[in-house]
């Protein structure tokens, strides 16, 4: 167990009717590591994310989490194993309050059955859910807005709300899908500092990102995808010098 990486992706391929979105990708994320996953548009980053969190199944290959195969598991089972995720296009629940949004993440741990809703003991359970929710809200500095409807938050704060909700599931591995998309430079830097802080406190993070500067400045290791295949897997400095990466990704900037 101690030697096995937290997340292991073994030769995973996913085809969509003739299109191979992810093509034989192998890689891993070790515990307490912050790994960036980058690649040009259509490189298969989000597909790989959906494969890890169980929204789609691999055509070939296998994904293992803490030594356990995720094959055939539905998304909620995978989430309960300890993989929390955010979505690329924000998926907050606008008609619910900030507090309720985040507490959704805590429900799987503390129980939310119809039976429990009718039986005594809901005070103490709801106390524990509130405690965890309040804790997470403090971390993302949204405590002051706990009672507001999520729809009233600014775009930047919604990003944190989405991360907070994933944190409330008490994940071991947090996978973030383009958290910096749509943020300005200083907001991006602040977010990077926040993610780094999560890793310092023991979380493992896999980060899909478009923003190169963010990935290069905070990640321990960077995996590069192009046309569904992995073309590099190294520390940020080496990746930036890798000719294959420059060719397929960075080269497009010129």
């Amino acid at each position, binding site marked *: 167990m101690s030697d096995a990486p937290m997340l292991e992706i073994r030769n995973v391929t996913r085809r969509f009717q003739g299109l191979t979105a992810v093509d034989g990708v192998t890689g891993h994320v070790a515990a307490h590591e912050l790994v960036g996953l980058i690649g040009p548009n259509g490189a298969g980053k989000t597909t790989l994310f959906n494969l890890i*969190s169980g*929204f789609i199944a691999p055509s070939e290959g296998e994904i293992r989490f803490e030594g356990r195969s995720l094959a055939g598991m*539905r*998304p*909620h089972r995978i*989430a*309960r194993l300890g993989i*929390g*995720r955010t*979505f690329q296009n924000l*998926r907050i*629940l*606008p*008609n*619910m*309050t900030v*507090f*309720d949004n985040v*507490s*959704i*993440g805590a*429900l*799987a*741990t*503390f*129980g*939310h*059955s*119809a039976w*429990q*809703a*009718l039986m005594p003991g*809901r005070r103490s*359970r*709801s*106390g524990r*859910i*509130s*405690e965890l*929710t*309040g*804790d997470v*809200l*403090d971390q993302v500095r949204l*405590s*002051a807005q*706990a*009672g507001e*409807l999520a729809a009233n938050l600014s775009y930047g704060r919604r990003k944190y709300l989405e991360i907070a*909700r*994933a944190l*409330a*599931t008490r994940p071991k591995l947090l996978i973030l899908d383009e958290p910096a998309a749509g943020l300005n430079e200083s907001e991006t830097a602040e977010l990077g500092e926040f993610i780094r802080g999560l890793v310092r406190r023991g979380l493992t993070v896999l980060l899909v990102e478009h923003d190169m500067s963010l990935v290069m400045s905070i990640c321990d290791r960077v995996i590069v995808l192009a046309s569904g295949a992995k073309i590099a897997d190294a520390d940020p400095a080496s990746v930036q010098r890798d000719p294959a990466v420059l060719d397929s990704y960075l080269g497009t900037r010129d």
Partner: protein
Amino acid sequence: MSAASVPERGDHPTLPPAFAKALLALILFVAVPATLSGIGGGYLYQIATTALIFVILAASLNLVTGTAGLLSLGHAGFYGIGAYVAALLSTRLGASFLVTLPAAGAVAGAIGTLVALPTMRLVSIYFAVATLGIGEMIYVTLLNWTDFTRGPMGIRSIPDIEMLGWEPHSPMQQYLVVASVAAVSLWVLSRLTHSYFGNALRAVREDDQCASAMGLNVVHLKIVAFGASCCFAGIAGALLAHTANFISPDQFQFGESINILAMVVVGGLGSLPGAVIGALLLVILPEALRSVGDFRMIAIGSIMFFSILLLPKGLLGEASALSLLRRQFGEAWSGRPGPPVGWR
């Protein structure tokens, strides 16, 4: 907002819960019977009893359609199952109300759960169509299984409510029994709605993919909500059987499902008080407008039309009916690629 206290849901001003409960109980058990007896009416009691039956129906449908966001078009079918279970048990086996009432709820809930198992993986409009089909199947079964249900003739002379030898003879006593059942049903439904279970259902309604990424078993939640909702529809059916003393299949047709849905929509999807008010409105208004004859149907139609047009969230709702419908139709409505339609 301190972390230890759960914020009030929604943005409506609310009374302190204990006070509100006491006030509602006072209205239900004292004010209404006093008023009705004051203006002297057996007939008025009948209307009040019917209104309470529909309050249970609307409140239970609200759990599935309002809170969990599953458009169900077959609620009257489960209402019918409850009514027939109660009617058959009491006329054929002489079972008392204390047996027929829970039995009606249990059978309707069990059938609802069984039916839900295969349909819950259907998304959006396909689920609505499936429930429509189920409702019609129940109706056709009640109509054609003549040996068992007496078919279109219906079941007559269903015994009155009877509990351990006590029979409520006056309309007021009957009303009070129905009011007690309605109060307990509403209490259970309100617990289910205003709890973390309810929040999980809301998450499913707003974004089921996101809910499952948070570790919520979406299919399981939907099945439980649907089963519970059907159970209360069955209980409402039993109340109808024992208070009207006559039931027939045409009381449980598609139109009745739509009628119940209209109550939920007018009251506001997702709001329990809304469903109650919607039910009261749509039962009492047609009676109040009886003097204008056939125009009353136009008046009721207009109320529904304008409430959707002017109050998209109904009187008190959390989600707008149009946006629910829009989601049901998925990409076909918006023209942009939405969540996959069909099986999930």
